C-alpha cells in the first residue's frame, strides 16, 4: 500500500518528464543534432574530396618523403612518390587535369633549408589543411637537419618525456593523471547534479502552484510524496545520462574514425579519444552523481517545500548553491595537488565529495579506502538530509504565505 502510492508518484514524475518536449529535446535531439552537424558534412566531404586527396609527392631531396608520408596518410591523404625527372611537372599537371590525382607537392633542397615547398592543386586546400601540411613538411626538414647533428629530434619535438617513479609504491596501478577528464568531469557533475536537484525543487513546488497539495497530502504521508518525487526525477536523470553517455561512446567508437578519415584536419580529436576515462572512472562518475543527486535533491526538496513560487525558490536555494559552487572554485587546486591534506579533507566533506573526490580520483592516485570512506560518509549524509528534509517538507508543503525564518525552520524540524 505504502509502496503503491510512492510508486504512483515515481511513475507520474517519470512519465510527465520523459514525455515533455524539453526532455525529448535535451536528451535525444541534442546528441543526434550534434552528431549530425559533424558527421553529415564530413560524410559528404569525404565523398566529394576523395580524388582531391590523392597526392603525388615529388621528392628532390630523397630524404623527406619517408618522413612526411606517414603523417600525410594519417591526415587523410593518399600519397605516392614520384621520382624527380625532367618533365615530371608537365606529366603531373596532365594527371591532375585528368582527375587521376588531386595535386602534387614539390620538395627540394630549398625545402630542407627553409621549410618552403610548392603544392600544385586543383582545389585550394582549406587553411587548416594548409597549416597541417606546412608544419608536417617543416618538421620533417627540421628533424632531418637535427639528426645530421646526432640529435633524436623526433622524440624532442614530440615534447620529451617525464617518467614518474612512485616512491611509496601506492597507487601506481591507478589511471594516469588526466587533467581534462578531472576538470571537465567535475564541471559536468556540477551541472547535472544542479540540473536535477533543481528539477526536484520545481517538482515539489508543483503541488503548491497547482493547488493539489491538500488532496495529495490527505491521502499519503508527505515523506512518501517527497521520496516519490526524488526517485522519479532521479530515474529521469539516469535515463538522460545513460542516453548521453551511450551517444558519446557511440560517437567516439564509430563516429570519430569516420570523421577523421573525412576531415583530416580533425585528427587531433583522436588524441581526445585516448584520454577518455575507462570503465572504472565512468562507474565512479555515475556513483558520485547518484549520491550527490540524493543529497542535493533532499536539500532542494526542503527548499521547494518552504516556498510558494519558482522565483521565491530560486532565491531561497542560494545557500545550497554555494555548497555546490565552493568545490568548483577549489577544483583546480585539488587537481594540482590531489593528495594534499586540504584536498583530502575537503573531498571527505560529504556535500563537496561528488565534485572534489571525483577530481582527485580522476587526476591522481587516491587510495581505495578513501574512495570507499567517501561513499560511506555520503550515505550517512543522505540519511541525515532525508531526515531533516522530510521534517521540513512535512510542515512546509502545506504552508503558504511568508517563507519561514531560521528560528521558525528550527521549530519545524523539532516538531515535524
Amino acid at each position, binding site marked *: 500500500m505504502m509502496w503503491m502510492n510512492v510508486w504512483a508518484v515515481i511513475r507520474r514524475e517519470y512519465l510527465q518528464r520523459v514525455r515533455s518536449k524539453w526532455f525529448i529535446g535535451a536528451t535525444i535531439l541534442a546528441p543526434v543534432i550534434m552528431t549530425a552537424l559533424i558527421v553529415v558534412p564530413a560524410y559528404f566531404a569525404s565523398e566529394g574530396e576523395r580524388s582531391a586527396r590523392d597526392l603525388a609527392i615529388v621528392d628532390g631531396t630523397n630524404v623527406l618523403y619517408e618522413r612526411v608520408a606517414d603523417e600525410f596518410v594519417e591526415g587523410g591523404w593518399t600519397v605516392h612518390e614520384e621520382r624527380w625527372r625532367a618533365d615530371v611537372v608537365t606529366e603531373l599537371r596532365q594527371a591532375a587535369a585528368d582527375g587521376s590525382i588531386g595535386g602534387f607537392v614539390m620538395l627540394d633542397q630549398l625545402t630542407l633549408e627553409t621549410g618552403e615547398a610548392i603544392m600544385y592543386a586543383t582545389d585550394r586546400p582549406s587553411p587548416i589543411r594548409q597549416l597541417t601540411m606546412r608544419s608536417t613538411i617543416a618538421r620533417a626538414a627540421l628533424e632531418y637537419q637535427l639528426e645530421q647533428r646526432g640529435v633524436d629530434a623526433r622524440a624532442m619535438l614530440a615534447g620529451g618525456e617525464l617518467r614518474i617513479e612512485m616512491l611509496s609504491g601506492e597507487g601506481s596501478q591507478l589511471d594516469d593523471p588526466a587533467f581534462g577528464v578531472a576538470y571537465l568531469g567535475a564541471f559536468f557533475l556540477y551541472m547535472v547534479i544542479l540540473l536535477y536537484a533543481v528539477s526536484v525543487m520545481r517538482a515539489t513546488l508543483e503541488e503548491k502552484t497547482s493547488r493539489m497539495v491538500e488532496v495529495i497530502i*490527505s491521502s499519503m504521508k508527505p515523506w512518501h510524496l517527497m521520496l516519490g518525487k526524488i526517485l522519479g526525477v532521479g530515474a529521469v536523470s539516469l535515463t538522460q545520462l545513460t542516453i548521453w553517455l551511450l551517444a558519446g561512446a557511440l560517437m567516439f567508437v564509430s563516429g570519430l574514425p569516420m570523421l577523421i578519415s573525412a576531415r583530416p584536419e580533425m585528427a587531433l580529436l583522436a588524441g581526445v579519444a585516448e584520454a577518455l576515462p575507462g570503465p572504472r572512472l565512468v562507474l565512479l562518475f555515475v556513483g558520485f552523481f547518484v549520491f550527490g543527486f540524493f543529497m542535493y535533491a533532499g536539500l532542494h526538496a526542503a527548499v521547494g517545500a518552504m516556498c510558494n513560487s519558482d522565483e521565491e525558490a530560486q532565491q531561497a536555494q542560494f545557500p545550497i548553491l554555494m555548497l555546490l559552487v565552493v568545490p568548483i572554485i577549489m577544483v583546480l587546486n585539488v587537481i594540482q595537488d590531489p593528495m594534499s591534506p586540504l584536498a583530502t579533507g575537503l573531498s571527505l566533506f560529504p556535500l563537496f565529495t561528488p565534485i572534489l573526490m571525483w577530481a582527485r580520483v580522476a587526476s591522481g592516485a587516491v587510495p581505495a579506502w578513501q574512495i570507499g570512506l567517501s561513499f560511506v560518509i555520503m550515505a550517512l549524509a543522505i540519511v541525515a538530509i532525508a531526515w531533516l528534509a522530510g521534517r521540513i517538507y512535512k510542515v512546509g508543503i502545506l504552508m503558504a504565505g511568508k517563507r519561514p525564518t531560521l528560528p521558525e525552520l528550527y521549530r519545524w524540524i523539532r516538531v515535524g
Partner: protein
Amino acid sequence: MGDTGFAVRLDGVTKRFGKRNAVDSFDFEVPRGTICGLLGPNGSGKTTTIRMIMGILHPDEGSVSLFGSDPDVTRRTKVGYLPEERGVYKKMKCLEFVTFLGEIRGIRRGEGRKRGLEWLERLGLTDWADKRVEDLSKGMQQKIQFIGTVLHEPELLILDEPFSGLDPINQDVLEEIVRDFHAKGTTILFSTHLMDQAERLCERVCLISDSKKVLDADLRELKASERKGVVAIEFEGPDAWLQGPEIDRVEAVKGGFHLILRDGADHQTILRRGVQSGVRILRFDLVEPRLHEIFVRHAGAGAVGSSGMPTGTKLGTAAAGGA
C-alpha cells in the same frame, strides 16, 4: 472500523490562528450513512473544520476522530475529499489524472482506468479521456476533480463547497450523483453557504456562525420543532376574526398576511372562526420555516451574508500554527 456509529466526530475542538479562534469548542458528529451539511457564511470556520477532519490541520484543543479513531493516512484514504482549493495536474491527461488519484489511495492502475472510463462516460467526458486537463474548461475540470475524489469508492465523501463554480445543469448532475452515493450507503459531509441546496439534499445540518456551532440537528426534526406556527392567509371581508388568543400578531406581506401564532395554538380554531364569520377565505396555508429563516433566527440576521466576515482562511497561517 464499525465500532462506532459515527463517520466523523469532533469533540470540543478549538483551532486558533494567532489570537483569533477559527473554530471554537466545536462538538460535531456525522452519523454513518447520512448526508450532512455544514452551513455557514464565508469565514465561519467550515473549511478549517474540514481540514482538521482530513488531518491537514491539527486542533489546538479537543479531538477529531475519523471512523472512530485518529484521522491517520490509512483512514483518510477511505475518504473522498474535494477541497475548497481545487487543483489539477494540468499537464496530465484526464484519465491518467483520475487513475493516479485512485492509485495513491490504493486502487490498482488497471482497475482505476476501468472505473475512470466509466465515470468519464457517465459525466459525458469520454472524448476528453486522452486530452490534457489544462485543455478542459473550468466546469469540466471540476468534474474531473470530482471523479478523482470518488474513484476509490470512499466510505465517506467530504466535499468543500462542491457546487460553487458549476452551472445549474451540472449542479443538478452533481446533486444526483451525491444522492446515488447516499443511496449506496456512503456517508456524505459537504459544506455550503447555499441554504437552498442544503435544504434539498441534507438529512442533517450543522449551522456554524462566527467560529461557533449554532445548531446541529436532523433537518426534518429541526423544521418540525422550528415550525413556530406561521399561517399565510388571503381573504375578502372584515378582519374581526383575526382577533383571538391564538394569534400573537399579524404581519402584512405581499399578497396577504402572515399570522404568527402563539406557542401551542391550533390553527384549526382560527380557520373555523373565519368560516363562521362569513369572510371569503382565498388561501389558508401553513408555512414551513425555511432553513435560512431558522439560521437567521438562531445566529442573528447579521450572521448571514454579512460582508464584514473575514473571507476564506488561508492555508498559510493555518499550517504555521498547526505544526
